[in-house]
């Protein structure tokens, strides 16, 4: 505690609460409000330089900094894990610049900043999920011109999105896009759910939590408000499907979750474990056992 208090004093001497100055936060909040008002629409904002490189979550960090208050409890995950470099450094960043309480327990967090996963534990009303987004424009693959993609969004010209899926089927026999799988939000805007695995796409649909997306380098913020309809694009004869795993998690035995492959030695040994570390640990504490521990 004394350490935290000492940190707080240092914060007040050096930085504004949550690093960004209040005018910047207001600017970002305006973009967030507009994003919420027009679900799935990419709102341009004056992204700031952050004390970390682009690609490390500068967009998500700015969104979190703009909405976080002293009473919030923050969780940061990177590919589902609370204990990887990106998650730890961002969590420490907010510990130092805000002094808010942090947690690894999904259910206890009021704000969850995430890089590429939606937690397995269902989210509750009042929670905010902040995504770090590298490329917010789902049409970019087929249309490099920003002026053109904006017009296409404005006129709902989304035929090319299916060209991408067609190309997948022609090449692989099925829709091989496994992450950043395009969705249509509230029947209007086609949106990139950030590089989350498509396994998480169904969780976005009518989610009780507020989902905010920040792309720092590309200077875009967009939002999916609670209970919004989110539909993954597909073909009538090739409907949307999520990944299926042959075996359950090797540590906790969970079967209905997204798994990471972990190489265990240099002789081809491997195991599949939950990508959501909090979910896995909770299950193990509850006595669930996977084959690795049995």
């Amino acid at each position, binding site marked *: 505690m004394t350490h935290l208090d000492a940190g707080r004093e240092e914060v007040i001497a050096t930085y504004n609460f949550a690093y960004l100055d209040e005018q910047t936060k207001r600017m970002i909040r305006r973009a967030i409000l507009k994003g919420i008002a027009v679900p799935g629409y990419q709102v341009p904002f004056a992204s700031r330089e952050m004390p970390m490189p682009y690609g490390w979550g500068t967009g998500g960090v700015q969104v979190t900094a703009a909405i976080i208050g002293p009473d919030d409890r923050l969780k940061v995950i990177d590919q589902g894990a609370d204990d990887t470099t990106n998650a730890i450094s961002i969590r420490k960043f907010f510990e130092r610049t805000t002094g808010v309480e942090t947690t690894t327990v999904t259910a206890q967090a009021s704000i969850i900043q995430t890089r590429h996963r939606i937690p397995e534990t269902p989210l509750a009303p009042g929670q905010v999920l902040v995504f770090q987004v590298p490329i917010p424009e789902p049409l970019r693959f087929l249309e490099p011109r920003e002026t053109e993609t904006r017009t296409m969004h404005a006129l709902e010209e989304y*035929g090319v999105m299916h060209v991408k899926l067609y190309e997948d089927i022609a090449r692989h026999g099925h829709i091989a896009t496994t992450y950043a799988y395009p969705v249509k939000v509230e029947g209007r805007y086609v949106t990139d759910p950030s590089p989350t695995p498509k396994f998480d796409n169904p969780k976005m649909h009518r989610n009780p939590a507020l989902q905010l997306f920040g792309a720092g380098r590309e200077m875009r913020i967009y939002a999916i408000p609670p209970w919004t309809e989110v539909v993954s694009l597909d073909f009538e004869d090739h409907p949307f499907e999520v990944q299926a795993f042959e075996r359950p998690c090797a540590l906790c035995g969970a079967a209905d979750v997204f798994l990471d492959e972990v190489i265990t030695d240099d002789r081809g040994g491997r195991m599949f474990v939950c990508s959501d570390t909090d979910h896995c640990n909770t299950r193990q504490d509850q006595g669930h056992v996977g084959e690795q521990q049995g």
Partner: protein
Amino acid sequence: MTMQDNDPPLMRVSKLSHMYGDRIGCRDVSFDLYPGEVLAVVGESGSGKTTLLNCVSARLQSSAGTISYRMRDGRMQDLNALSEAERRFLMRTDWGFVHQNPADGLRMNVSAGANVGERLMAVGQRHYGRIRETADDWLGRVEIGHDRIDDRPGTFSGGMRQRLQIARNLVTGPRLVFMDEPTGGLDVSVQARLLDLLRGLVDDLGLSAIVVTHDLAVARLLSQRMMVMKDGQVIETGLTDRVLDDPQAPYTQLLVSSILQV
């Protein structure tokens, strides 16, 4: 041209002008285009052919004049009064545009099948099997082998790319196709086959077309009527055979006599 007496024109252009600042792109161009008719626009480089084509295809906002087009429901619509959404919808359903350089009209980073299928998906088709079937059928009609459906246009020859571009444009059954030097950059034997194919398609589908070309042979083979342009203005217009066999304007006489004889 007896049908002209009965059918109302498909497109009516009147007093069309386009200025690039102080410079003239094209000036005071008027013509009617009838259903099933192919109109050739010929003239030397810089005579305003492409400017005219871009204006009448609504890709370029003209400075003055009117362009009206008979929509599928039969009413004449002023193109300048269309909203951008309507204009773009018209472009990808009822119109086609064949560029001189196929790379401008194709998506080079997706397969031939996806290139042909794009317009179908753009108008709302969502059944992969049927889209692919239609694409396959169209590749056959433009003489591209069925085994090339999953290849990217980058692996195609120039003539194949041009044929692919034509298939991509015709898949939604357009009524009017704009062509900008469709045979430019192709060698003569490939040109001949492409022209043959185009002539067949235009006949079979009852297409109307406006073809911009500097090649009088293309005009002779494809078009029923032609306009000769010079310095942004139309200097002679008439039935293609009449203009080529009995040119009236001095410039047209020069143009016709400039054709190399082999």
